[in-house]
Structure formats: C-alpha cells, structure tokens
C-alpha cells in the first residue's frame, strides 16, 4: 500500500530576481514501512522534496497524498495538526529546544497532542534511544550524538507513521552515525515506521531499503 504518493509536484521560488525551479515535476511512491534514502548532489532538491512531503512547504503545483489524503489542499492549521499527529522530524542540526531538558523536549509534542501518558512514555522513548540516564540534561549538556537521539525520541513522541530525517548524521562522527542509522533500522523493523532520510553518505544510504536519486529538481533514478 502506498503511504506517500507524490504527483507532479513543482516548486518555483524567486532568488532575488532569478526564478529557481527547485522541483521540476516529481512523481514518487513510498510504501508503508519502507525505509527510503534520498540522495543527490547539493541543490538537487532533496531537502525541498522532504519539506514538501513533511508539509513544511507548499508546492507551486502538484499533489501530495499522505495515507490517501491530498495534503496540498489543507490549510495551515490542518497541516500543523497533521504534522503533530502523523509526522516526525529529525534535522541535521538536532534543533532541540535549548531551554527544555531531554525529557521535556520529548514531552512537549505529547503535551500538545494531549497524550495522557506523556510522562511515562517520554521516559520510555529516551530509554529506547539509550538516554535513560540523561533525562534531565539540557541539550547543551549532551553530545551531538546524544542530542540527535533526543531528536529521534521527540520525533517518535506521538507515534507517527512517517519519520522524515534531513541529513540526520550530517553533524555526527562515524560511530554516532552508525548508531543512529541502526536505531532507524530498529524503529523501522519493530514499529513499522516509514522513514524518508536525506543523506549525502553512500554508506548510510546503502542501509536503506531503497535509494531515490535526485538531480536538478527531478528524480534521476
């Protein structure tokens, strides 16, 4: 079953006076529980594509179906609600809330989603990513790898069907990168989460079920 279906999406924006075609008619289908890596040179449209699937951006034209729903038709509030309940984001620069502890970072989306068991669940998620002993540490007190694990735990907070990761290992050393990808694989296998991961690393990309290559705003293969 296709969980993500993208039909002819195009994204054009102005860079000063220059018109830039970031996406040039993308068609893609991703099945439920698939672990897909998105690769390609810088500026090829990988992150733009991920942002569109993640409903962070709106395409100039085309349709994006998530679990059968055309999300391009949703308004801002509906998109925010969908992101909260069904999507999890992992960014290259960790992007944690610096004023919240690891536990609070994970709890916040659950509180927004009014999960009654958020206290217990947030602790379990941090234990799952191997940070059971770092619950009350602020992001500034954690290493890059540990911060990225908190980001993953936060992305899993509301048990989303889709995890979107934009170069999650881009700022990590080889050991931490390997641990993170193994965690992704574990989540994918045990929870059946669909994972879309942008990466520059051929080695990391090879750990996914499938690789989609981007070039010049189009899917190359």
């Amino acid at each position, binding site marked *: 079953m296709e969980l993500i279906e993208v039909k002819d999406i195009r994204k054009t924006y102005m860079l000063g006076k220059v018109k830039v075609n970031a996406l040039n008619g993308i068609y893609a289908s991703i099945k439920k529980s698939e672990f897909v890596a998105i690769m390609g040179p810088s500026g090829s449209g990988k992150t733009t594509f991920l942002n569109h699937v993640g409903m962070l951006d709106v395409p100039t034209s085309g349709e994006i179906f998530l679990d059968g729903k055309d999300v391009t038709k949703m308004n801002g509030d509906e998109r*925010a609600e*969908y992101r909260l309940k069904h999507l999890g984001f992992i960014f290259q620069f960790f*992007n944690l809330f*610096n004023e919240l502890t690891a536990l*609070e970072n994970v709890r*916040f*989306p659950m509180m927004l989603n009014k999960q009654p068991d958020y206290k217990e669940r947030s602790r379990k998620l941090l234990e799952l990513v191997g940070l059971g002993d770092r619950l009350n540490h602020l992001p500034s007190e954690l290493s890059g790898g540990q911060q990225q694990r908190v980001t993953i735990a936060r992305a899993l907070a509301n048990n989303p069907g889709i995890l979107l990761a934009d170069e999650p290992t881009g700022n990590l050393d080889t050991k931490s990168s390997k641990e993170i990808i193994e965690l992704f694989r574990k989540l994918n296998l045990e929870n059946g989460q669909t994972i879309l991961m942008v990466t520059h690393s051929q080695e990391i990309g090879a750990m996914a079920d499938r690789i989609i290559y981007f070039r010049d705003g189009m899917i190359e293969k």
Partner: protein
Amino acid sequence: MSALLFYAKKDIEANKKTFLFIILAISLVNANIIILNGTMDGMVNEFVDRTMESTSGHLNVYPEVNDRYIEGLGIKEQKLNKIDGVVVFSPRLAASGSLSYKDISKPIKIMALDPLKENRVTLILSKIDSGETLNSDDRTGILISYKLADELKAKAGDDVNLLFEKGTLKVYRIRGIIRTGMEVDKNTVIMNFEEASEQLGINNMASMILIKIKDKTMADYYKDKISMELEVSNIKTWKQEIEAFVSSMDTFKEITATINIIGLFAAAVLVGVILYININHKKRQIGIMKAIGLKDSQVFSVYFFEAILLGVIGILIGSIIGYFGTKYLEAHPFIDPVTGPMGARFGMYLLYDSSIVVILTVILAVMYPAIFAGRINIIKAIWGE
C-alpha cells in the same frame, strides 16, 4: 493550553536576565501610576475634605440674585426643622469692614455665625492655631485668621478695633487665631451672629445657610426639596461648591494622565522591543515549534502567555512598590506653606485600576511581536534566516 503555558514558563526561566528588564519596566510603570494617582487623589480629597470641613454644608442656601441677604430667616429655619432628612443647619452673615491693632489697620471679611449651630455643620471653629475658640454666648470676642494676625502683629488676648461697613466701631478681644488651609485664612474675622446682626443693623437675615443632610449623596434630591419648601432658588450642593476647585484639579489630573500615558507608552515600546528582539533571536526555535505541529495561533499564544506572565509578575512587584510608596507619602505628606500638609491617599482601587491599565499595555506591547512569531515561515525559521 497547558503545553503552551509550560513552554512559555520554561522560556522565561531560561531567559531570566532578558526578562528581568521587562519585569522591571512593568513594575516601575505600575508603581508610578499607583503613587502618582494616589498622591493626586489624596490632594484632591484633602482639599475637598477641608472645604467641607470649614466652608460648606452638604447644601448651601444663598440670597436670590440681586439680593444681599436671605430674608425671613426665622421662618426658613422653622421650615428646615420640619424637613425629614435635614440634620442640622447654620446661618452665616457675611460683611466687610476693617480691623485695627495699634497703628496697623487691615480690610477684613466678617463671617458671623452661631457657634452652637456651626459646630454641628462644620469644623471651622475647631481650627484654632492659638488661643481658644468662640463660645456661643460670647459677643465680645472674635477669632481672626492667622495671616491677618501676622499682618496686624496681634495675638490671642489682644483687644482690636473693628470698624463695620455701616461705620460703627467697637472693640473686641481676640479669643483665638484660626488656620484652616483655605481662603478663610487670608483676612477673616469670625464673630457672633447676633452681635454682627446688631452692628450691621439687620434682623432676621443671613448671607447663607449651611445645611447638613442625612446622606450627602442625596444632595440633588434635597436641593429641589429645600428649594420648594423654602421658596428659594439659589441653592448649591457641596459638589457644585467644590466644582471650581475640582475643575482646576482636572488640569492637574490631565497632567497626571499625560505623565501616565507617556510612561505607559515608553513601557509598551520597551516591552515590545525586548520581546521582538527575543523572538527574532529564536526564529529557529519557532521553526521547530511549527515543524512539530504548533499552529500559528499557538505560537502566538506562547509569546502572548509569556508577556502576560511577565506582566503579572511586574504588576505584583509594582503593586507592592506602589502600595508602600503611597503609604509613605500618606504618612509623610508634602507641606504646602499655604494649605498645609497635602498627603497621598491609598485606596485598593489604585491597585485594580493600575493593574488593568498595565496589563492592557502589556497586551498591546506583545501583539506585534507575537503576531510576527506566529507568521514566521517555517523553512526560513528552521534555517535561522
């Protein structure tokens, strides 16, 4: 809601130093409003009280236009006695003359009254600076204002020559010197009503009748009633009597209001700018908030709640400062050489009023930064643009 409040609280805790400036600004503005208005109201009330204590009843009956005296005083007094709600009244006579002591002579205003009746309406006879007050049957003694005493270099116990406007001259003994903090202090001689009537050659007449009623808030009702019963038209309520003063105080109130508005505007700008700068430095955080599922309105709410929390803390601190500041000025009033002590007056309404005004100012200040935060583009924010 609880999640948004949770984040707002955490953000404040993590940015204590920045937010201390906001709290300080709000506290000072709040305290300033309380103290300034407390002082202003205290002075107004003080003046009104003094006016009521010495120169006015709840209702004052004056002679008809073009008349100098109210005629048929006896009948009018009988009628007043029969009106339910009229507690007491005191007729007064006003005249002019001159007072001489040794080789100094000064023009004076004569205020003649019946001490027994007057003491039940005003406190003027108790405002004795030195000497003693006037007894009800004392027709040979007078009270003079302290300024007049200074000019004549006379004191209580001295004998002075009083020349009435009709030309009669008589010696009186100064029983006491009065100080009221009012116009009366200038050049007034207070004397017995009957004695003045005799010297002025009038009978059964008064220049005004001061009336005290059961409930001063019903002055307008009794004004009409007394006007009808006594068949007089020139009656003023206590509010009308102090109107001239109050209208002049309105100018001061406008000045106070202007100072308040400038202070509030400055605080609003300061709070708004600090919040805006803070939000501008947190674009990435806002981007993450939106990415994980906060709606624009929820992002707005986070910063709105922050401002309200800061506002509440600022108001609490400002109220404490304002309370003690006003209480201090109440206990240590300004001393005016003419009117005497003029102190602040604390009332709970000062706290309520200032809190409402300040919280509205905070709301106004946060609107633009919070709307700005809500409208930040997610992609640009995440990349810190």
